[in-house]
């Protein structure tokens, strides 16, 4: 049992920078967990505090049944893979992998065979006598993983595990990493600033900003139902369209178009209230002809993304007292074959059940059907 539990965890650096702000988080046993956020959001500090490389200013960290808040890193039974892999250049691959065992006073023969076994698992068997400098980036990463695995820690911590690999290798390593974690079943926490990486790898994601967690959930949850506009803007390869809207009776006026209220928001909003309407470009269907219940405007940019294109429509903004009638941009993902030309007039139809409403930056949901399931229930469901 090696769940990680953080309670009111706070880290204040000398000089007063509050990197972690009374943060509560539970990571289930065996879970592959992502800490995601822009740089400076505290995700690396959180990882290093779990490792013990940073000392918490307040709150507690528990791994399994042990309170490790005040334990030194070497006593926490965690292993970390650094962004630069931190392989010792003067040691062979074998000695690098066996290093933690050497510190734990395992005798030479058994740590050598242990290193060889671990290297085999990761497809490094022919490279044991090489130096790290003679390996490719992907091989170096696997040596670093092997070193972390060799002493069977309770928790793996990975700091930006894929960022030092080139684009093609990154996809390969991503698949490899996910399979490895599934096979080992060890609780793994990784830090990334790349939302695609977090969505692809993790069982659950914590999106962080300014030392706080803005949302915790499965990739599907954070993608489909971002809890606030920060998460909505951060997750997704194309950011969510966030457009000013006003409630008019049963309808929503968005960019001078009348759209149905999202199911969740029914009964939660008042007539005339001003909100933000959110819809992912992937959940808008493009139409070259007029359709009811659609956002409409002139096509200004068409970006080819391979199998699809990203089309930007210039739509009229909501007429408000402060800004007056403005213009705003709506992005639509269009399947190949149907791309318009710049200058065309297009209609974007939201798919039912995919649009969201935000009030003061937070998701408007029906209280009874509270959209985001509790993390605990979710973790239990998977295991």
């Amino acid at each position, binding site marked *: 049992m090696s769940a990680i539990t953080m309670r009111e965890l706070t880290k204040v650096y000398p000089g007063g920078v509050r990197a972690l702000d009374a943060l509560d988080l539970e990571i289930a046993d065996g879970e592959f967990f992502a800490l995601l956020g822009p740089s400076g959001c505290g995700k690396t500090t959180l990882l290093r505090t779990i*490792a*013990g*490389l940073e000392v918490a200013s307040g709150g507690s960290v528990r791994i399994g049944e042990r309170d490790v808040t005040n334990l*030194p*890193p*070497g*006593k926490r039974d*965690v*292993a*970390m893979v*650094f*962004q*630069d892999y*931190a392989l*010792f*250049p*003067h040691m062979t691959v074998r000695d690098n992998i066996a*290093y*933690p065992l050497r*510190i*734990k006073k395992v005798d030479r023969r058994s740590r050598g065979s242990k290193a060889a076994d671990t290297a085999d698992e990761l497809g490094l068997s022919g490279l044991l006598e090489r130096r790290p400098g003679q390996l490719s980036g992907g091989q170096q990463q696997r040596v670093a993983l092997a*070193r972390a695995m060799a*002493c069977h820690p309770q928790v793996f911590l990975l700091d930006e595990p894929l960022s030092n690999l080139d684009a093609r290798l990154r996809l390969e390593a991503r698949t490899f990493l996910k399979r490895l974690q599934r096979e080992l079943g060890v609780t793994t926490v990784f830090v990334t600033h790349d939302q695609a990486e977090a969505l692809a790898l993790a069982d659950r994601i914590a999106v962080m900003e300014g030392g706080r967690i803005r949302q915790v959930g499965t990739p599907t949850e954070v993608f489909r139902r971002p809890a606030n506009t920060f998460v909505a803007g951060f997750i997704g390869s194309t950011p969510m369209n966030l457009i000013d809207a006003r409630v008019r009776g049963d309808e929503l006026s968005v960019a001078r178009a009348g759209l149905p209220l999202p199911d969740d928001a029914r009964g939660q909003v008042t007539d005339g209230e001003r909100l933000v309407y959110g819809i992912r470009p992937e959940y808008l269907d493009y139409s070259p002809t007029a359709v009811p219940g659609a956002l409409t405007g002139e096509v200004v940019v068409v970006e080819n993304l391979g199998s699809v294109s990203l089309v930007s429509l210039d739509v009229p903004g909501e007429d408000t007292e402060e800004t007056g009638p403005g213009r705003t941009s709506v992005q639509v993902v269009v399947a190949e074959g149907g791309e318009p030309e710049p200058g065309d007039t297009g209609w974007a139809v939201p798919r039912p059940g995919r649009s969201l409403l935000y009030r003061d930056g937070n998701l408007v949901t029906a209280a009874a059907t509270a959209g985001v399931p509790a993390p605990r229930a979710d973790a239990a469901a998977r295991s």
Partner: protein
Amino acid sequence: MVEGARPVTGASPAPDAAGLGRARATGFLVPAMVLILVFLVVPAAWTIYLGVTNYRLTGLAAAHPEVVGLDNYTRALGDERFRTSLLLTLQFVLGSAVIGQAGLGFAIAFALRDRRGPLRRVVEGFVLLSWILPSSVVAFLWIALLDRDAGTLNALLGIPGTAWLLDHPMLSIIVFNTWRGTAFSMMLYAAALENVPRSHLETARLAGASTWQQLRDVVFPRIRGHVLTNLLLISLWTFNDFAPFLITAGGPEQRSEILPVYVYKVALSGGELGFGAAISFVMLLINLVIALVYLRMLGRRKESA
């Protein structure tokens, strides 16, 4: 002379990175070459020549020095005083440079590696101060510190009458030179430690490595080149250091007479310039051997890396 050795090529575009062309590059080099020639090469050659003569400061041989072949060298090697002096010099280098300056310098640099702010600046300031003060001032300070009757050290320890300079002359100059030269090693190691990636130290810490194990497995392999360069430089400097003369003057009874002091006494006090020059040349050879040993070790490191 240099111009003669390297004929100037025609108007072809300059092949060097700075675009100077051979002629102008030579022009820039000549002044430095002349200075090196006049003040380094000629005196060195002159010393070698003097070493095979019976040249003296005064007397008949001062006017008409005669070439005596290797007599000076055989005399030096057979001289008990020379051999003792050589031994003392080795003690001095080992004690004050290799163990004292390098050891203490590394210890301070390692202790301060993650510190920023006033503590670091104060420590570094004091260490540097001991390095940049003129030798004569420093010598006076140390004599005042170690004096038998009115010395600061005896007053601090409450043991008046302990004659440090008379009873422990070698220990005194070793401690003195350690204090004097630690700054260089400290600064060099502080810079070297910046090259040790944090993640490497942290990997060792996560594995549970002690401070000593981190030094052995992460730090030293990484800064081996810096260590060797540092040891090479401070060994040579210490080997040729004359400052201890200002404190003990080689005494008492030649018990702190390291080679530079010995040469000074033989050549200038004793007036035997030829003999002194011969010993100087022997020192030069020893320096060369020290340098070659270190360079060899550095080279081996590059091969293995």
